[in-house]
């Protein structure tokens, strides 16, 4: 919301600079985001009346006399929207328009133009705050605009605007007078007196004649506690006068016609939304009631809307004619032909307007004010004030209003001094508290231990005791309170088990040389398709703002692949990343949210170097990471061939712990990486955090280790290629003596002189005995047994080293 400092100064004088004012407002809780200065860029532009307008024969041009009162200027123009008597801006010879062009006398055939008439663009005005008529050709000003005056004196182009970012509880400040009242509060605080808001009351002195012949029936008084409707007869609808146009200019409101301009003015200035109907188009009476199902209304924006149970409507005896508190209907709109106006001024229940507007997704200036809470006691004053303006602008006679009043009495809010001290951490003397309420213009009664406070009716933010405590804080200043550290039992602070475990995982993975990433958890369908992830039970956002962020990731694979893609494109080839994050799936009527570890590798562990060192990331490197991680967690796991849609079908393993699947690891399908423009192989592993947590044995126990040197022996086994290494190993372990403490595979060989279907696996075995250094002879029975078992169980041959 932009508020003109010039306009504020017209309402009440103050000495604050705009910047100081902005700071004071921010400290009051009315945040000013920006101070915006506007300046005119034109020069020597005065208002003039068009006279003696005539077409120059054989041209498309017109000649005219621009009368500035004291002087007259011959002007040639191509504009076609002028008529005699129009008041227009004129740049005098030697003057400048907003783009910097200096205007000199210009010759058109035998005519000389002594200056130029201006459009809004040439004046550099904001088209957003002008009517469409004003934006056509030359800017035509209200008929009663004084002539011969500098344009910037008549329409304050030079101004400073405060750009407010107000929070929803500041219902009292979403309009100019509301802001001005807070300046009064600032002044009252400075001068240590009670705030006086009487100067902000509009002038309601007006002669009323006769009654309004359209009766008002409020069917749902709890939703419309106050409703006033009055008729103003015999109006002339047309353009607003100079003085009203100037006000709209400062309020940055676009003019429509005098009647609508007045309602907009009252809304933006006094914060009371009004609605003017063409009284002759209302059938018999006005009803304020809930919409019935199946009812429709074409609103002022030309949209036909089907109404629902949340909508409160203004209806005549036939049909809805307005959406209460939101927008009027097109059929009863005030037009140039309107002779009689029915002016509505009401207080609608905030939640009612909020629901109604939101149910139609139709937020208007009026609904935004009503839903936050307007002043319930102000509508009749606003109606009288607006009527008075209507008479000034459009003539007519004003009738007594028909009023439906179901406002209860406002009950005071109780505030206990003991409570103030307890919440704020400091006892405040009663007189001090009273002083703060004075500054804000509150009425109160001293009841001894407590006060009964009646805030002004526009203060909708004060309903309970703590609301008043906030006002004390606001007036005393949030920063004039001291600080205190927490007291309490010195118990040790802990993380939840899950949180602690997740930190532990991150720590272990970093130790293994991986870089953590934080990726988006909202992705698009295309990414899912391109990564061949299972598309069943996807958790979808109902109201996404873009397709690319419309579903919750069901896997960390797509997002990590995106990271690899981005980095490869940026020239980083060696990538070893992980993420500890959530993945999501739909689960019947509910949703499932699971913690996962995703690891992705591509490139080489060692950066390019002249030393011939290469440690390419591959399946076994990744497997090593997983094994190392599981070892740190004390989890016994085994790996078996598995399948995943996005992984190489013959280079994928599932990870199991006691027959429960805890993860998957594999080489990413080259079809996928190619689609992503990724050069080189990519490896991926995903582990399930909740199972890891369940199976982790984090409390480590001391295990005795041998003091005697080991007995080393290398063996080699020739077996069929089809036999998994795991099987060979298990055969060795099944016959080995308990002294075998370490078995390491150090070579795999295929090729001559072995047969085509054979491989040679070479192991280094280490034997330790507790009480002695072992001798080779002790292993003879083991070797014999191994030879025999290998032959029997897997058809393998033992080669002794």
């Amino acid at each position, binding site marked *: 919301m932009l508020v003109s400092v010039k306009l504020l100064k017209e309402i009440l004088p103050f000495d604050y600079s705009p910047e100081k004012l902005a700071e004071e407002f921010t400290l009051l809780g009315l945040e000013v985001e920006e101070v915006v200065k506007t300046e005119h860029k034109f020069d020597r532009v005065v208002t003039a009346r068009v006279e003696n307008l005539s077409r120059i024969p054989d041209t498309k041009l017109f000649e005219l006399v621009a009368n500035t009162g004291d002087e007259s200027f011959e002007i040639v123009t191509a504009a076609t929207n002028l008529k005699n008597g129009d008041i227009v801006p004129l740049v005098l010879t030697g003057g400048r328009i907003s783009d910097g062009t200096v205007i000199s006398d210009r010759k058109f055939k035998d005519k000389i133009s002594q200056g130029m008439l201006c459009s809004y663009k040439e004046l550099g005005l904001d088209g957003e705050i002008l009517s469409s008529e004003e934006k056509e050709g030359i800017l035509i000003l209200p008929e009663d605009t004084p002539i011969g005056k500098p344009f910037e004196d008549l329409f304050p182009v030079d101004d400073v605007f405060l750009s407010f970012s107000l929070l929803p509880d500041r219902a009292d400040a979403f309009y100019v007078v509301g802001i001005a009242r807070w300046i009064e509060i600032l002044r009252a605080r400075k001068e240590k007196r009670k705030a006086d808001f009487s100067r902000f009351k509009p002038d309601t002195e007006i002669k009323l004649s006769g009654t309004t012949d359209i009766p008002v029936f409020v069917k749902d008084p709890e939703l419309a506690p106050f409703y006033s409707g009055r008729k103003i007869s015999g109006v002339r609808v047309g353009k607003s006068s100079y003085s009203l146009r100037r006000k709209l200019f400062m309020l940055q409101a676009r003019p429509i016609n005098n009647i609508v301009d007045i309602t907009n003015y009252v809304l933006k200035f006094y914060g009371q939304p009004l609605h003017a109907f063409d009284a002759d188009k209302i059938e018999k009476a006005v009803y304020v009631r809930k919409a019935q199902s199946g009812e429709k209304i074409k609103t002022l924006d030309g949209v036909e809307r089907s109404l629902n149970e949340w909508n409160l409507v203004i209806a005549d005896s036939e049909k809805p004619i307005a959406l209460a508190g939101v927008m009027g209907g097109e059929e009863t709109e005030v037009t140039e032909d309107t002779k009689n106006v029915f002016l509505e001024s009401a207080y609608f229940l905030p939640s009612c307007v909020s629901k109604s507007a939101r149910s139609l997704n139709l937020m208007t200036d009026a609904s935004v004010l009503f839903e936050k809470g307007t002043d319930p006691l102000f509508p009749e004053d606003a109606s009288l004030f607006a009527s008075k303006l209507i008479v000034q602008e459009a003539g007519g006679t004003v009738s007594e209003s028909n009023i439906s009043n179901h406002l209860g009495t406002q009950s005071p809010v109780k505030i206990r001094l003991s409570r103030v001290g307890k*919440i704020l951490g400091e006892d405040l003397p009663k007189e001090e508290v009273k002083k703060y309420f004075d500054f804000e213009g509150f009425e109160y009664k001293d009841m001894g231990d407590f006060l009964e406070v009646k805030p002004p009716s526009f203060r909708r933010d004060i309903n309970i005791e703590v609301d008043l405590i906030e006002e004390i804080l606001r007036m005393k200043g*949030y920063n004039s309170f001291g600080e205190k550290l*927490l007291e*309490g039992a010195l*118990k040790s*602070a802990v993380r939840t088990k899950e949180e602690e475990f997740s930190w532990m995982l991150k720590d272990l993975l970093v130790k293994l*040389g991986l870089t953590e990433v934080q990726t988006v958890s909202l992705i698009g369908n295309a990414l899912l398709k391109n990564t061949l992830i299972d598309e069943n039970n996807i958790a979808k956002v109902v109201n996404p703002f873009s397709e690319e*962020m419309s579903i919750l990731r069901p896997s960390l694979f797509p997002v990590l692949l995106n990271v690899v893609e981005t980095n490869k494109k940026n020239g980083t080839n060696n990538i070893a990343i992980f993420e500890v994050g959530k993945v999501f799936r739909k689960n019947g009527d509910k949703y499932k949210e699971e913690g996962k570890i995703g690891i992705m590798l591509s490139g080489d562990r060692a950066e390019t170097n002249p030393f011939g060192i290469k440690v390419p990331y591959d399946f076994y490197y990744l497997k090593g990471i997983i094994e190392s991680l599981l070892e740190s967690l004390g989890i016994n796991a085994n790996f078996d061939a598995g399948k995943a849609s996005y992984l190489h079908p013959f280079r994928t393993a599932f990870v199991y712990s006691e027959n429960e699947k805890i993860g998957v690891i594999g080489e990413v399908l080259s079809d996928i990486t190619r689609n992503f423009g990724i050069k080189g192989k990519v490896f991926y592993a995903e582990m399930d955090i909740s199972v890891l947590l369940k199976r982790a044995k984090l409390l480590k126990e001391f295990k005795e280790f041998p003091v005697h040197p080991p007995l080393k022996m290398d063996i080699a086994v020739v077996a069929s290629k089809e036999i998994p290494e795991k099987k060979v190993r298990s055969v060795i372990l099944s016959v080995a003596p308990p002294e075998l403490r370490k078995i390491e595979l150090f070579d795999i060989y295929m090729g001559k002189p072995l047969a085509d279907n054979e491989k040679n696996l070479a192991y280094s075995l280490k034997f330790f005995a507790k009480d002695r250094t072992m001798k080779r002879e002790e292993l003879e029975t083991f070797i014999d047994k191994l030879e025999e078992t290998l032959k029997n169980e897997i058809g393998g041959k033992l080669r002794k080293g």
Partner: protein
Amino acid sequence: MRQKIEEIKNEFIKKIKTESAEELRELEKYFLGRKGKVALLFKELKNVPKEERKSFGESINALKEFIEKNIKEKISEIEREERMRKLASEKLDVTVPGLKLRSGALHILTQTMLEVEKIFLSMGFDVMTGPEIEEEYYNFEALNIPEYHPARDMQDTFYLLNKYLLRTQTSPIQIRTMEKYKPPIRVIAVGRCYRKDPPDAHHFPIFHQVEGLVVDKNVSFKELKGTLSEFVRRMFGEGVEVRFNPSYFPFVEPGAETSINFGGWLEMGGSGMVHPNVLNNVGIDPEEYQGFAFGWGIERIAMVKYNIPDIRFFYKNDLRFLDQFR
């Protein structure tokens, strides 16, 4: 005889100037060998008159020792030089860059979260967690934000089906905590939140918050200020100024916005005294217990502290960005 000894010595001194270890060994043989010059001298000793024999014998011995010592020294000198030559031949260009093995690192957001958690853990705050897919009740109603309340506009929400949504704040963890534990409560929660803000330099639909909640019998606004100020001093530095402004969040009253002076006043996050309606919603008597809550953005903290200009950097995961904070 004396002359001979002198001649041999001079000859030796002349010959030992060689630099070759091989020549030295030849020299050793030539002078000290079984048929070497010195041995010959000893043989000639028997021709010397008896009374002079002893004195000559000592002289020859001295010559022998002289030659032995010098040869030994010379050999070790040459060996030293040879070793140096060998080492020199193994010279490395120490200016060649070392082998780069990228070390692992936490994401800068995670580092920030860790720092935040550590500060609050040290102040006795437990760390809680909650789901990212949240029930509407916990995200809004229980926090004093009824349906259709304009305050919902402050947080544009991603909805799922059946009254589920992506939490717009970590505040639902306040409710979950108070439902589970009785006061005194002193917790924080750090987690991922979602709002329907189209991405730009300062907004991203995904972000993280740190939520704090303290409920006890006498926890006042002063403790709120004290706690957050202490946090700021630990996070941003001892001398950093802290400022509080009135603000509005439906689940606190009075509500506050905190700014820090870090090269100009910067808004850091919201806080306030827990609203009595919220305490009532979880069955805690607001007449007996009171407290404060706060919610600050982790991205905001990191951007301010590390001078990061664009929130989108966090989620692009360009290693050239992440590596700056390893």
